[in-house]
């Protein structure tokens, strides 16, 4: 009995990873055949980043059961620390994959550490309060990045929170992080293959965590905190574990994102609460706690506004309407009943035939 259940998990996980692999092969073939439009080729890497973000947030929202609205903040940490590293070492480490690997580790580690530090006070809260505080932390991260000036010259690094003039750089010095203007000139080290490898890695980490002993403990906290505590589960430890892993994975997505764009700026759009909510929308639409759903929702919702470009100014309006319709179709109780009825009718017809 037990082995059957384990096999079922393995089977489900394999399907999820299989979808990603099939998608990768399909895109590679299309790309090699030259029929893939430039738009889609340009979207591939951001798409990978969004999938990783959605899966990692699902760990916090779906598995740990806490609503976090600051996920883009962790992505921001990963993006900026890794882009900073890559820009500094652009001329010293010329082998791009090695540089990207180190940048990846740095980005994930920094985001993880920040996640751990923020998690300690924040995870004492529950529900709406936790959501609001994570929202605030996400905004704080974005705003700190926006006033941060870091330059480098022969003497070493210079920091300032005022403007790039007060860095007092020597002749030939280079401003690396230029406040609200962000980092310009990050080497383009990420590509689709790396993105897919990172997605699979993320899926392996998250899916294995869910089905591990630790994952069971985390889910027991979600289902009943008091019961979990009464059987001796270390609540703080497991909460922090899930939150930190989730943050580190978001940092990974940030690394992927920043190494795809030449000029990286922390605007409300890409690292503010807009983005956090966007990621949450991926998770909710795909199904809370459903990892495969997150992957599919992230793909669909990222492609949708781009594929609607033909509609010009009505594009964002229609995107919103489509989003509402999809949410209703997925989650409204009447719709669920209607879908069941529909499914029943179809299956009955099949039996009759």
């Amino acid at each position, binding site marked *: 009995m037990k082995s059957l259940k384990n096999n079922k998990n393995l089977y489900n996980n394999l399907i999820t990873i299989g979808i990603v692999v099939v998608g990768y092969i399909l895109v590679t073939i299309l790309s090699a055949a030259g029929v893939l439009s430039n738009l889609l080729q340009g979207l591939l890497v951001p798409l990978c980043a969004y999938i990783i973000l959605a899966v990692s947030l699902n760990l916090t929202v779906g598995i740990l059961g806490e609503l976090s609205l600051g996920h883009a903040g962790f992505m921001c940490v990963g993006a900026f620390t890794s882009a900073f590293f890559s820009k500094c070492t652009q001329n010293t480490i010329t082998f791009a994959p090695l540089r990207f690997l180190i940048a990846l580790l740095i980005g994930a580690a920094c985001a993880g550490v920040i996640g751990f530090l923020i998690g300690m006070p924040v995870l004492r809260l529950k529900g709406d309060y936790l959501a609001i505080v994570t929202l605030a932390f996400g905004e704080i991260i974005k705003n700190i990045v926006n006033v941060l000036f870091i330059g480098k010259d022969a003497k070493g690094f210079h920091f300032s929170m005022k403007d790039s003039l007060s860095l007092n750089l020597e002749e030939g010095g280079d401003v690396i992080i230029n406040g609200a203007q962000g980092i310009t000139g990050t080497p383009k080290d990420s590509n689709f293959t790396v993105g897919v490898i990172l997605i699979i890695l993320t899926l392996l980490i998250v899916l294995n965590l869910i089905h591990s002993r630790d994952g069971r403990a985390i889910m027991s906290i979600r289902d009943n905190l008091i019961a979990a505590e009464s059987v001796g589960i270390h609540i703080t430890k497991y909460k922090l574990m899930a939150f930190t892993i989730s943050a580190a994975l978001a940092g990974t997505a940030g690394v992927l994102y920043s190494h795809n764009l*030449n000029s990286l700026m922390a605007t409300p759009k890409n690292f503010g609460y807009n983005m956090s909510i966007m990621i949450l929308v991926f998770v909710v639409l795909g199904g809370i706690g459903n990892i495969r759903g997150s992957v599919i929702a992230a793909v669909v919702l990222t492609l949708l506004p781009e594929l609607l470009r033909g509609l010009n100014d009505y594009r964002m309006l229609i995107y919103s309407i489509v989003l509402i319709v999809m949410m209703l179709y997925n989650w409204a109780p009447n719709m669920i009943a209607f879908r069941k009825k529909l499914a029943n009718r179809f299956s009955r017809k099949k039996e009759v035939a």
Partner: protein
Amino acid sequence: MKKKIMSLCLVLAMAAMTLAGCGGSSAGSDTFKIGGIGPTTGGAAVYGIAVRNAAELAIKEVNAAGGINGYQIEYKFEDDELDNEKSVNAYNTLKDWGMNMLIGSVTSGCCTAVAAESSNDNMFQLTPSGSSTDCTANNDNVFQVCFSDPNQGIGAAQYIGSNNLATKVAIIYDSSDVYSSGIYEKFVAEAANQPFEVVSTEAFTADSKTDFSVQLQKASDAGADLVFLPIYYTEASLILTQANTMGYAPKFFGCDGLDGILGVENFDTSLAEGVMLLTPFAADAEDAATQKFVSDYKAAYGDIPNQFAADAYDAIYIIKAAAEKADAKPSDSVADLGTKMEDAMRTITVDGLTGAAMSWDADGAVNKAPKAMQIINGNYSLIQ
């Protein structure tokens, strides 16, 4: 099983969409396809829409007059929502459409992101208003119609210094905006060489741009007799109103972002009396070309065009001049066309709405004389 079928359907649907997405890539070679990128939705939509409309107006004129080298122009404008990533997506969309040349992006950050992509393709790119030096630096294919930020900052400081407009200068700028902080930095650097002193520097951000009493009070306490405003006109109109309320009346000096201040709704334009600005374009200038542009634009789109619109209008005529010089044809490949156009750009001079005898240096920055305007009797008038 049902889920499996569902996901299979989804994959197939996506594959179909992919294929559908590249229908238009085999371009007909009898028209030039010019693409444009800028924000037409969201907070910066005013600028994107101005560029979109003015470029369209200019293209209609060029087409009516026989096109470029006898070829008509097709035009398509894509929204980037003021987002670097979306801007690159828009660029890729336009490439799928078969774009030969690009006008954009409208804003500096997006322009820098797009320039990194377009330089790989050697796509000829002319930005009407992306004023940061990052747009053109290391990108041979990118040219600007507007002044670069450093030129504006240095120009403003030199103008104030050489005309002895002030001894103590205060600055209020938007630290979250590339344009504003770019000008600010160069202004301060150049101010060290000028006979005035910067006594107060106050910043605001996009999140806090409605109340400026603190910044004005500090400027007033420092005894500044001139306030430098390297910002856009919406905030400047608030600053002028609030300065008036608190009884502080220094000289105000701005850059091209202040153009349009007389058109702000519910703004008492008498407060702007005496404000000086360095701008390449004023909608109520007296010359025939400007008046024709303004009346045509107003007839077509119902607004008075701002400086962004004028830059975009010039951009089309600059492309026309360069393409004629280079003897460009739509059948040239994108990269060949880019090389031809780049060589031509460095040799031509163009008279436009935003400057006479514009020429371009090796970096792609424009050389044109800055014009200083002063608002007198509710009109922009050129300071000689």
